[in-house]
């Protein structure tokens, strides 16, 4: 008995000193007659229990950029569903590298693995940086980029990013081929040059690359593509990226631990260890922020006073997306554009932005207010005008007999207040609505599938490129909203067919003018996401919209201990 106790003691000492892996601890404990859970409980090692972290360490909420409203989903998908993107972009942003990214203010493309690029005669040519290496020390080459594109466009992977390459030569053939077929239009003339030949002009393709992590061919080249997302690879230290930090481990339900990639192509990170924390509740994240255990937490305008009272804390904000009301225009009451325009006039967007959003939103009338050059200057701002709203309703023969179902799905209290305000503004002009909160039970999605829904308040994630308007208001819009406009489609096609910024601007402005007049959506607020940032401890950090890969210069971030 005494000997046994000694052996348990020495086992614990080894575990505590980090000399043993968790697996090893449990194996040895088993040899001593202890059950695995008991051993784990006794020794107190979780997946991460025995990892030591030396040097500068930064811990922050992995959902920091997702905003208060997006939070439950962000925490729900605890790690990225790589091939299909994933809610936890913070992890991918730190571990992986892209060909190109966007500046955090969404104004310009920034080269990541690509040093430069050009488009000549429908051929994109990317010149790669020669100093980029994978986490295992292998150089990143053009072959990896070609591999990634072929992987995503392989129907076996069912990747949602595959269609970004629909205009590339060989795309259709790859979709219908019996065996995996590479895209003939994607080639690597040498180790640091990638050429992508297009079958038809597509000036929007560059924007598609912002969502795509380049993957290592030497590691994943032989993997079975149908089951590639099921590999343990994605959530273990086997993972090989080219981003500023290497994957160390996923601590189930708690955090992802990363360590600096010293050979990162923009320079070795100043921070040695990075812990991306998972929180299921925004309150807990903010409490951890107050305690100093979490240096960046998502917050809402309701917490402004609280955060401003914390020493060393700063509130930063960035574009989150445009809040809109979307309509099922198949419903007879909503088919007349004058009804939808009336709603745009009926809601006092400016007052809501100033009061309920406390200034962290602007009144808007378009989906992509960030891209100034694509905005027509004669668009109707739909300033608050209830008289006009009532007049339009009368012209449209509005009876107000039916109460319209008005869905929303954001869980934060600010959205709930905005919904009530909008309901009252609409009621004032004679439009009765019933607010319906989507608690994730799927009732709303069922209504969308059955095409029985009326209207929904949602948000379109901040887009850096007008090219993506096609994805919403082109043919997919017909499926979701029952709205289709040939003129709009023609303008979008014309814009995508030219690489000249000024020509693009003309067509994009025309397309946006059509959306503004036809009002398939009523666009309301350019919302900001807020982050409580402990700037006393964390310096040089760059933040942007959580759903795209903006350039965050993570290697330059630094913390004071």
């Amino acid at each position, binding site marked *: 008995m005494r000997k046994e106790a000694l052996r348990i003691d020495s086992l614990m000492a080894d575990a505590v000193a980090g000399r043993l892996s968790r697996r090893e601890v449990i194996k040895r404990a088993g040899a001593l007659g202890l059950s695995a859970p008991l051993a784990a409980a006794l020794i107190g090692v979780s997946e991460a229990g025995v990892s030591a*972290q030396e040097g500068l360490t930064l811990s922050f909420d992995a959902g920091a950029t997702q905003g208060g409203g997006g939070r439950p989903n962000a925490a729900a998908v605890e790690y990225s569903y790589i091939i299909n993107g994933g809610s936890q972009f913070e992890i991918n942003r730190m571990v992986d590298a892209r060909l190109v990214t966007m500046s955090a203010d969404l104004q310009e493309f920034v080269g990541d693995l690509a040093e430069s690029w050009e488009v000549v005669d429908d051929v994109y040519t990317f010149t790669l940086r020669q100093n980029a290496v994978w986490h295992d020390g292998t150089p990143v080459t053009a072959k990896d980029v070609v591999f990634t594109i072929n992987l995503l466009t392989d129907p076996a992977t069912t990747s949602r990013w595959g269609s970004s390459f629909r205009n590339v030569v060989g795309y259709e053939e790859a979709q219908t081929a019996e065996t995996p077929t590479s895209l003939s239009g994607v080639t690597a003339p040498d180790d640091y040059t990638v050429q992508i030949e297009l079958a038809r002009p597509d000036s929007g393709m560059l924007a598609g690359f912002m969502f795509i992590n380049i993957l290592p061919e030497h590691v994943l080249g032989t993997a079975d593509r149908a089951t590639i997302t099921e590999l343990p690879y994605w959530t273990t230290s086997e993972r090989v990226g080219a981003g500023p930090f290497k994957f160390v481990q996923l601590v189930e339900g708690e955090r992802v631990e990363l360590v600096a990639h010293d050979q990162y192509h923009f320079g070795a990170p100043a921070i040695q260890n990075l812990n991306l924390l998972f929180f299921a509740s925004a309150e807990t994240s903010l409490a951890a922020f107050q305690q100093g255990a979490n240096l960046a937490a998502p917050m809402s305008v309701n917490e402004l006073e609280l955060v401003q009272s914390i020493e060393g804390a700063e509130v930063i904000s960035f574009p989150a997306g445009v809040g809109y009301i979307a309509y099922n225009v198949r419903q007879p009451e909503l088919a007349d554009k004058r009804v939808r325009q009336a709603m745009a006039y009926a809601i006092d967007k400016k007052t809501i932005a100033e009061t309920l959003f406390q200034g962290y939103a602007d009144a808007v009338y378009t989906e992509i207010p960030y891209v100034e050059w694509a905005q027509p200057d004669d668009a109707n701002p739909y300033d608050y005008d209830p008289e006009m709203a009532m007049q339009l309703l009368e012209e449209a023969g509005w009876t107000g007999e039916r109460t319209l179902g008005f869905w929303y799905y954001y869980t934060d209290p600010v959205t709930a207040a905005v919904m009530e305000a909008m309901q009252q503004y609409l009621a004032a002009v004679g439009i009765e609505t019933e607010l319906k909160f989507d608690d994730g039970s799927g009732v709303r999605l069922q209504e969308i599938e059955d095409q029985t829904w009326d209207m929904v308040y949602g948000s379109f994630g901040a887009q850096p490129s007008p090219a993506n308007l096609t994805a919403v208001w082109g043919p997919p819009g017909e499926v979701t909203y029952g709205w289709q406009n040939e003129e709009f489609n023609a303008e979008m096609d014309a814009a995508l067919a030219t690489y000249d910024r000024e020509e693009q601007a003309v067509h994009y402005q025309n397309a946006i003018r059509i959306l503004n007049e036809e009002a398939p959506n009523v666009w309301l607020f350019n919302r900001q996401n807020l982050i409580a940032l402990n700037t006393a401890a964390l310096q040089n950090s760059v933040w942007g919209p959580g759903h795209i890969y903006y350039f965050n210069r993570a290697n330059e971030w630094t913390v004071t201990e």
Partner: protein
Amino acid sequence: MANYLVHRLFHAITILIGISMLVFTFVELAPGDAIDALMPPETLATPEAKEAMRERLGLNDPAPLRYVQWLQRAVTGDLGYSLTSRRPVTDIIMARLPETLQLVGVAMLFSIVIGVSTGIVSAIKQYSWIDYLATFLSFFWLSIPGFFLGLLMIYIFAVKLNWFPVFGASTAGAKNPVLDRLHHLVLPSAVLGLELAAALTRYTRASLLEVLKEDYMRTARAKGLKEWVVIVRHGLKNALIPIITVVAFRMPYLISGAVVIETVFQWPGLGLLTLNAASQKDYPLVMALALAVTIVVVISSFIADVAYSIVDPRIRIK
């Protein structure tokens, strides 16, 4: 005894199959599917991409067929892959189960020690100030919702006093994982255990008061036994029989209470996982979780039966 065990085992298997059918039916009846979690309508996924994903995950097969397929694999120990994270369900659950058992175990231990001892003192010193205080506090803990108490404790003991960590079960790179783990356990297990402790205080008090009035207690005292012997050997042993039932029946409550507490404290257990899996319609994960919880409950009620028969020989004879 062997006969009894076989009987119990048969019972357990029937319950497990019944529960799995119920859970499957409920998940199936809920509108929407995992595709909505993977590719919400707000993203730019095309209907074709969604259909391809649905086909790939096997969601296009008829429901009864999917249940039978699931059952066939489950009996061989293969619980499939999570629809949303594409990781083996068994791996995910085995990483989480010990965490919940640890939290629930410590909470239970805490509540038994605090609850039973307070109940005893309350009964012996009936109508004293201790009794009144204990009664007041137990009604207080019983009526206060767990999530609120959790947030309150976090505010006072973590944020203001900085005695305990706010969240999680471990600190990255902690020097002493054992102490670190205990440090993390204090707040969530106390919050989780307080309600049960309060209930146990009430039950122990009532039960012991009942026993104290029995004739055999008077007899024991008349034999000249010391007061603590009378109370412990004759009183407590009889008074504790109903308490065992209370503890065993509270096990499912404790586990469901853990769903809330784990969310508030970001404790990486089954509760938090269940919440996420259910909202994402991740049916392989939901099914496996329901099974795991059912197994824990079946085992705990079995332990209660055995414990009962030890304390009360009359049950063994039956």
